[in-house]
């Protein structure tokens, strides 16, 4: 089941620049199924052969990295200063358990007790500047034996079901895309497709830029996770997109004005194949399409995203049926693009 693989993938750790665990997992899955190479960036480029036909050159991509933190300094008292890797609201980090470094040492993020806060302090969110990780060490010397500057810090969050339809976990952005691509590589596809598992999306769309240059496709599909704000405190267009309403295909976000032909095609195919499909009701967010669509002389690009609540937090929430439908839509869209 694709959802079981998503669980495995989300439980792997891989902040931007340290995607090793995810890359190793992917290589293990695909090594007997197709040719692949690992480029200088650390992207995994997999060349999946189609069953017979020759079609248009298509690259499908998803990013391996997740948001997290990095150790920047060890304080005298043995606590660690951290900075975010990727965009994180510091408010979703405070009061959590984290895992530090290769050995995944347990750490906690707290601060002085709520009882000792002034009225102003109570209303004020903790910033990364004011935050520290406590790994139970009482001096810098003790901490230095366990932690090095530059060690990664990950959310410690189990992958669990919420209700009948939803799942919660860290890193659903974008292991969901990785899971869809792995499934497609395992299946018979009619046309050749190049799958790019890319690095460093969260710190500026860096892996995809090189992957797109290398692969030099005519078309690209980016599989992503995107912010859904379908919570009671948001209404109308502020909800952006909603869980349970199918894959999200955008016309425009902060990084891309999407190719109209592919945008229309996606909705057309969704309609013909009875796949629910929605668009974003705000021009917000951005993804690897931003780098890919302006590579070389320009690449016709579509993004198909999984609507996800509380994105970039330890508790991303997504709909299992949407996830399945992202796969379905990418499948028919890729076949259709290749046969153009």
């Amino acid at each position, binding site marked *: 089941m694709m959802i079981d693989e998503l669980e495995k993938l989300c439980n792997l750790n891989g902040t931007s620049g340290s995607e090793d665990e995810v890359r190793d997992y992917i290589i293990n899955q695909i090594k007997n199924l197709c040719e692949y190479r690992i480029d200088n960036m650390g992207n995994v480029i997999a060349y999946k052969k189609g069953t017979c036909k020759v079609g248009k050159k298509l690259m499908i991509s998803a990013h391996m990295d997740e948001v997290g933190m990095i150790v920047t300094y060890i*304080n005298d008292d043995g*606590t660690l200063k951290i900075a975010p890797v990727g*965009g994180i*609201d510091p*408010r*979703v980090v*405070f*009061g*959590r*358990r984290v895992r530090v470094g290769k050995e995944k*040492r*347990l750490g*906690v*993020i*707290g*601060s*002085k*007790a*709520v*009882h*000792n806060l002034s009225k102003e302090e*109570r*209303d*004020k*969110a*903790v*910033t990364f500047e*004011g935050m*520290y990780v*406590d*790994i*139970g*060490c*009482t001096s810098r010397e003790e901490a230095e034996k366990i932690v090095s500057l530059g060690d990664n810090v990950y959310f410690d*969050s189990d992958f*669990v*079901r*919420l*209700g*009948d*339809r*939803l799942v*919660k976990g860290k890193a659903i952005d974008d292991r969901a895309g990785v899971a869809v691509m792995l499934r497609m590589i395992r299946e018979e596809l009619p046309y050749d497709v190049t799958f790019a598992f890319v690095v460093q999306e969260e710190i500026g769309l860096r892996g995809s830029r090189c992957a797109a240059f290398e692969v030099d496709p005519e078309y690209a599909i980016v599989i992503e996770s995107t*912010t859904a*704000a379908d*919570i*009671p*405190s*948001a209404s109308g267009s*502020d909800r*952006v997109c909603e869980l349970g309403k199918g894959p999200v295909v955008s016309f425009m976000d902060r990084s891309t004005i999407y190719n109209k032909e592919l945008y229309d095609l996606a909705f057309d195919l969704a309609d013909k194949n009875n796949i629910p499909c929605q668009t974003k009701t*705000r021009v*917000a967010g951005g993804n690897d399409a931003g780098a890919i669509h302006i590579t070389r002389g320009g690449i016709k690009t579509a993004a198909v995203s999984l609507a996800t*609540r*509380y*994105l970039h*937090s*330890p*508790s991303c*929430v997504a709909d299992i049926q949407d996830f399945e439908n992202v796969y379905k839509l990418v499948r028919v869209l890729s076949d259709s693009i290749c046969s153009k």
Partner: protein
Amino acid sequence: MDTKELIFKLTENYGVSGDEFPACKTAANILSEYAKTEIDHFGNVIGYVGEVDKSKKTLLLDAHIDEIGLIVTYISDDGFLKVSNCGGIDRRLLLAQEVTVLGRKNISGVITSTPPHLEADDTKTPEIDNIYIDTGYTKEQLEEFVSLGDRIVFPAKAVILNCDQITGKSLDDRSGVAVILKTLEILKGKDLPVNLAVLFSSQEETGERGAKTAAFKIAPDYAVAIDVSFALTADDKPHKCGKLGKGPMIGVAPSLSRKMSDKFISLAKEENIPYQIEVMNGQTGTNADAIGVSGCGVKTVTLSIPLKYMHTPVEVISISDIENSAKLLAAFVEKGVE
């Protein structure tokens, strides 16, 4: 009884203020090895060690059994739960936090957080009124599992942080419960100069209410309130905090019996037990405040266990502080209280 295992066991079950039964049951089971034990209608666990001797004074050892949490106040049409707080929640940690709803079955949930594009000001902590619990269920489903008034907790199982330190939820004040149980273990079979009563009190976090009713019922002459207090963190003031791992904090305050405080200090010196002095300038913010004015008045003192990150799911305590507190408390019971 291994201290770490005892803490793990005591924190495993939930006991949000006013709904302490699961936590009470675990603690009462262990207490019944040492004392005649009952759980009263107010959710207090009360135990008497040995037979009551009317010629002796009665000493009460108290630790509160309840923990902070949330309470369900409303189910919205689209299946989100609205909540209020039970006890002093640190609102800074709410957004996207994992929770468990203690309904007819336990349900996992996430506290909603608003994405950046909708936040005019993301430097503010949310008001409890503005958060919802996302459980993934519809309103109809929720109405089957969840009733208004059900409690919500932060599900952080206690684990070792490093060496001697434990992190988890409700260490405030299951650590105090552990200290009392460890004390009884040390005292087992010994003749005591006092009648010894034990109280694991309910509803401390919502206003020391369990201690008030139970202290009336027990009517002790002396009492020790064993609770947690602030261990110094990088961003707090040294003069307002104790230090983690440096021993029990003996309370000295105008509202406490100075003789009892002094006795604790001299015993700690005699027995070579590390200790710290916690000076408070009025009342203590613990059950000592309620017990001290129960009936005609009770001579009361506090013994506190240093704890970091109070009222969060990442509270931290040191095992050595628990063990040293138990040693000191046992000496206090055995060698006279003032």
